[in-house]
């Protein structure tokens, strides 16, 4: 069932990919007998055929996470997405501290050990990157070193 579902998703993706490819205008400068649409079109068709094969001949069912695990995995994904969103305004140190606490708790850390780490680690990293390496991490609320 899972493979069939993957096949269906891939089939939809292939359809969209191929239709989209047909809109690329390759008649301008630099195009020959084959333009920017040729390879994507062929690739889309190949992908669709592979997807159809999956639907026709799926493998056995994999072991999916339990409901509890799924919930926690969802939380990590949401936290990771949020991290990308708040990194610029909030800054590296606070965003990282928050995600360390969230992930650490999910991995069953003790809070009294996790809290100091969650501040110490981003501060050390930010110090190293901002001062010794040529990489500026977003400062945000912290100010600067």
């Amino acid at each position, binding site marked *: 069932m899972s493979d069939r579902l993957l096949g269906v998703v891939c089939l939809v993706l292939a359809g969209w990919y191929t239709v989209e490819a047909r809109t690329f205008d390759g008649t301008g400068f630099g195009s020959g007998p084959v333009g920017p649409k040729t390879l994507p079109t062929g690739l889309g068709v190949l992908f669709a055929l592979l997807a159809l094969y999956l639907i026709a001949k799926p493998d056995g069912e994999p072991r999916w996470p339990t409901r509890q695990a799924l919930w926690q995995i969802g939380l990590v994904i949401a936290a990771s997405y949020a991290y990308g969103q708040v990194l610029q305004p909030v800054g590296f140190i606070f965003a990282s501290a928050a*995600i360390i606490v969230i992930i650490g708790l999910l991995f069953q850390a003790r809070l009294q050990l996790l809290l100091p780490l969650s501040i110490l680690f981003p501060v050390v990293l930010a110090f190293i990157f901002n001062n010794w390496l040529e990489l500026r991490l977003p400062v945000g609320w912290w100010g600067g070193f």
Partner: protein
Amino acid sequence: MLSSLTAVSIFAFNLLDGFQAALTPRNIALALVGCLLGTLIGVLPGIGPITGVAILFPITLSLGLDDAATLILLASVYYGSQYGGSTTSILLNVPGEASSVVTTLDGYQMARQGRAGQALAISAIGSFIAGTASVIGLMLFGPPLSEVTTRFQSPEKFMVVVVAFATVSSLAGRNLFKGLLAVSFGVMLSTVGTDLQTGVVRYTFGELKLQEGMDFVVVAIGLFAVSEVLSLLEDTVRGEQVVFQKAERIWVTSKEFLFSLGAILRGSVIGFFVGLLPGTGASVAGFMSYGLEKRLSDTEGTFGTGDIRGVAAPESANNAAAGGSLVPLLTLGIPGSGTTAVLLGILISMGIRPGSGNVFAETPELIWTLIASMYIGNLMLLLLNFPLVKLFVKILEIPTWFLMPLILVISYIGVYSVNNSSLDITIMTLFGVLGFIFRRLEVPLAPILMGLILGDDLEQNFRRALVASQGDYTTFITGWINIFVALLAIVVLFLPQILSRVRKTDIKSEFADAGAEV
């Protein structure tokens, strides 16, 4: 005869130059740091060699090092992480990378019998000998092959990429079609962004930042690191834990060494030649040499119960293959594994395009420095691992609650530093989810990365070939090179299936069951 001797001596001189460049105090220090970091990465759960090299690459760029130094550092990380992967295979029964899957068979058994020290020692010694052999092989085969490939035109180059895709799809997982699906998906990702020839913008959803295309570092870290964190979280929820064996000190007696020497030498030769095939790599070499050694030497049925030769053979072979796979990487631009695919991505971003020119002739300093530094890395690992194994074993005791948040934060820095863009973190998260689902469904991940990195080459050569032939598709099967390469593609696609049927055992299932990170 004389001319070939002259050629070999020129390469030897080049290699010496490479050693001279690699042996400055700064570069030795970088190799040392790289080996240590690499071993650490290989030993730690959650970051394999692919993730390690992918995360470290943008961070290395921020160090402001020159190209040669960057390559030395990352090549040492690559070597170190392979060795670290063997350590966890032996002590934990958890292979760090696909290439050390076979090592678990006898290595873990040895560790359970209290012989972990011997297993680790023979792995280090075998790797060193094989590394030496493969450097010699690389010196002999690399430059001449590179010269042959300069004669390749677009149709040949296109077909070589096709073979690489065929091999990686066929060997990466249990199901050939899922391998092909993965590689096609990777090529689809490579079409995102501005088309170089016409300037047409493709599949960017109107997002400006996507016009430059998908960055392989972002995709690699998402697919491998983030999805691994998710998988480990699931294990934690389930309460699963691995039991590791201890190693007090690393040593082998000269008797054990001599007993394994044949396996080491055979493993080195097989490994190197398997590595030469485009798109295969260390993991296949390990399996082949183990299979051969079992057939040749296992007269008492001791393989699989802790036979030291069962560790020596695959460990030498995977190391020799890592060297051998540099030949297709540097001459054709075809990586043999996920990690070498990342190395290729790094070379390309340095402006070195293996496959489109003779890199041995055009950028000899850099290439020979890379080769020399891999050799130095080998020697360093041999010297480091004997005294430091206890420390590395201690690393295995670091709790996951401490490691996982750190890995994730370092991944964020790596991804963020690529373009200073938060969008990349979102894309990384998305690929993390995809990677997690794909692992469950046994869709192999390494082919996605190869498709992404080589997809551009595939398309450019495809189009150039068709322009030259005025739209005639038979250009891809015209000429003996193309016919040979096309046949090779068909053979590598279907050979494992046919062999499994003939032998009535599924070689690839054994491989996939062992939990390879491919």
